[in-house]
């Protein structure tokens, strides 16, 4: 039997070649975790194109692909931004002549922030300054936001690295990921050993996929949202063209439903999420990354509603907490949930909670010199 095994091992170069060719060439990007459309968006952004998106875009997967590119570039990014859609208006125009990218994702929660920072670390992305858009729901355990689960692996890895997980905790985490990734593992193993995939790899099928869902555009003011090469977004025509009166009407109608996005059952800042936030800041300090906190404002009517309803008290508490933390840690804090305190009026909003691009640019203009 030993002799047989030794003889079979003589075929191992063939098996190794098969596995290596499939993995390294990977013509259909099976191992990149991105689907073809995600990968297409990343390729277009890398090439400096504006990409027309829709609401179905998996921006977390796009960030996964783009951050890998950022790491591969091995250059220093002067400024990067993470946060929710409310931070997507921060753009490279504010930080002229600086290398910049906005890695914000729609509906971001605290878990997303940790996961994206973990991706920076994993891909060895060099960062000078990180602008961290903080929304109050990021401290709400009951926000109901689940989109971060796409990045659950990175989130868990961040916790394991920063919360002193012992060996058993790490093994349990690993086993949990294996269990939830069984289908993926089966697919990867199948692809690594697939002779059909080997043939495709040998034919050197380059990724010349053309997306049917998305396309590039020269004109950045389109009906649909457009993602710019700096990662920021130009909102849709309907959002941009809405006048003050229409926005007010929409906000009033929205508030009449008595349910503000991400803020339901938000009675107190969740202690665990606070700990995670502080661990996030600590991990960035260790890497000598300067952190600027950005608090995007709510529409004046929305903020008044929040202020006047006790069940949203935690929003005010969140800002108080962040201000005291910024003072303690000597961090720059820009903006406020209260639009009045930063001089925003109703005309500065697309809707009940998204400040306009120009308003955000003006807000940051004042600190431009400090970020130079």
């Amino acid at each position, binding site marked *: 039997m030993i002799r047989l095994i030794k003889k079979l091992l003589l075929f191992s170069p063939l098996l190794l070649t098969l596995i290596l060719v499939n993995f390294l060439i990977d013509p259909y990007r099976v191992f990149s975790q991105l689907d073809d459309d995600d990968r297409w968006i990343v390729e277009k952004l890398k090439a400096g194109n504006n990409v027309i998106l829709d609401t179905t875009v998996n921006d977390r997967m796009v960030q996964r692909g783009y951050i890998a590119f950022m790491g591969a570039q091995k250059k220093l990014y002067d400024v990067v931004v993470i946060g929710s859609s409310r931070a997507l208006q921060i753009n490279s125009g504010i930080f002229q002549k600086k290398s910049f990218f906005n890695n914000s994702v729609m509906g971001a929660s605290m878990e997303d922030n940790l996961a994206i920072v973990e991706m920076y670390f994993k891909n060895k992305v060099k960062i000078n300054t990180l602008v961290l858009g903080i929304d109050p729901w990021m401290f709400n355990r009951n926000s109901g936001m689940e989109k971060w689960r796409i990045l659950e692996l990175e989130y868990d890895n961040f916790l394991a690295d920063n919360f002193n997980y012992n060996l058993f905790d790490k093994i349990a985490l690993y086993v949990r990921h294996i269990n939830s990734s069984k289908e993926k593992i089966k697919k990867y193993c199948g692809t690594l050993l697939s*002779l059909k995939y080997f043939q495709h790899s040998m034919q050197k099928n380059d990724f010349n996929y053309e997306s049917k869902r998305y396309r590039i555009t020269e004109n950045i003011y389109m009906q649909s949202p457009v993602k710019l090469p700096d990662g920021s977004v130009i909102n849709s025509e309907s959002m941009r063209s809405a006048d003050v009166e229409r926005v007010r009407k929409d906000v009033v109608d929205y508030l009449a439903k008595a349910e503000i996005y991400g803020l339901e059952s938000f009675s107190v800042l969740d202690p665990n999420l606070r700990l995670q936030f502080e661990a996030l800041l600590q991990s960035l300090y260790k890497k000598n990354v300067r952190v600027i906190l950005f608090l995007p404002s709510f529409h004046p009517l929305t903020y008044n509603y929040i202020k006047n309803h006790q069940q949203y008290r935690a929003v005010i508490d969140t800002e108080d907490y962040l201000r005291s933390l910024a003072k303690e840690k000597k961090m720059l804090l820009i903006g406020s949930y209260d639009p009045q305190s930063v001089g925003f009026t109703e005309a500065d909003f697309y809707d009940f909670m998204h400040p306009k691009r120009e308003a955000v640019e003006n807000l940051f203009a004042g600190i431009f010199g400090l970020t130079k």
Partner: protein
Amino acid sequence: MLFNSLHFFIFFPIVFFVYFTIPPRFRWFWLLLASSYFYMVFIPQYILILYFIIIVDYFAGRMIEKSTGRRRKVYLMASIIANIGVLFLFKYFNFFTSNLTGLAHFLHWNYTPSVFRLLLPIGLSFHTFQALSYTIEVYRGRQPAERHLGIYALYVMFFPQLVAGPIERPQNLLPQLRQLKIFDYYQVIDGLKLIIWGLFKKVVIADRLAILVNTVYNNFDYYSGLQFLIATICFAFQIYCDFSGYSDIALGTAQTMGFRLMQNFQRPYFARSITDFWRRWHISLSSWFRDYVYIPLGGNRVGKLRSGLNVLVTFLASGLWHGANWTFVVWGLLHGFFIVFSRWTMKLREKLVNKVKLNKYPSLYHMEQVIVTFLLVCFSWIFFRAENLNQALQIIYKICLSLTQVIKALFTGNANFFSDQFTGSEFGLSKSGLIVAFLSILFLVCVQLVQRHGDLRGIMRDRPAQQRWALYYLVIIAIALFGVFDEVPFIYFQF
């Protein structure tokens, strides 16, 4: 589970290594478990049908052996009815009722039959015949009844030959299942070589030719007779490489574990007559029909006419075994007719050969016999492959028409005729795909020519190690680069 799947390439090494690791007294159980798993990968519930047949035949065998006189026949008939009954229900019921419906409509009777909508259990025809050969041999006193239910179950379910043969005889397989199998390095290596060779035939030749054949046969209206002729010749190689490839993998798999299954193919396209063809093609099935249908009917020990009828009945049954369609019946009957015709005209043909002095050129005579046999076999393959009788007849008409046009073109020197027929990609294969197909058939023929002088594995064993390893690597790389990996099932799985 297909032999040409990743699943099997994970399954088989596990079965093999555990088999030689566990104590010998548990090996039958391990193989039975593995065989059950192998079968259940298709449709798990159908294992119950297999277990039912096994239990019926096990007890039938025991009772036949214990009984005397007429009772023995009763138990044999019970076994035959149970086996053929299951086969009839799953395979022939709908065919029978649809023909009955046709007849009823013709006679203006009001008859609406029920339709049986269950899938045919995989390998049903094969293991049914294998089980029947056991009870028949016990009845004939040529095989003692197996007392161990597990060993008997393994005889029916042994996974290498479970779904597409070879159809084993109890005298060959049952004793081997009881023997202690020692790990034999050379047996394992020979078995692995056979598996690789079978895989080469299946994925490089058969599945590649299948693309061409399916393109032509599935688009009947678009192709000319000449293109159908080429597709038919390709089908001849496709079905041979597909089925013999499967058999090689089955034999090789069994051989690695120390079991010797019967040879199922002996270079059939080198046959010099249709009778010779059936001594070389699907040997396990043809010998089964010979021993359990043809000889009991009287064989050729009866008069000329009766003997001819026996041949036709045997081949009719053989055709039906292949499928519930009139095309298979005609295919079988054609072979029967060819054999009867060749017997009845033997003296006349010998006279003709002497007259043209062909016998003075034995090589030429041999080649003529091989070519004529091959063409007759290809002609019958048209019925085997066609969807229905009507299509088969139309294909034959198209071919005849094209052949007359070819003759006309040759006489008039019309070179454009041939270029008009073949413009490149009309066969569904790229130019390189066609070249690979052609070269691999050539390679196969060369290998078979070498095999006429001895077993290729034996010849290879005497070569220096570098030459052997170079060939192994070449074949495996050829499989990796040129194989078709769309997990095309083996043709004979449908039977």
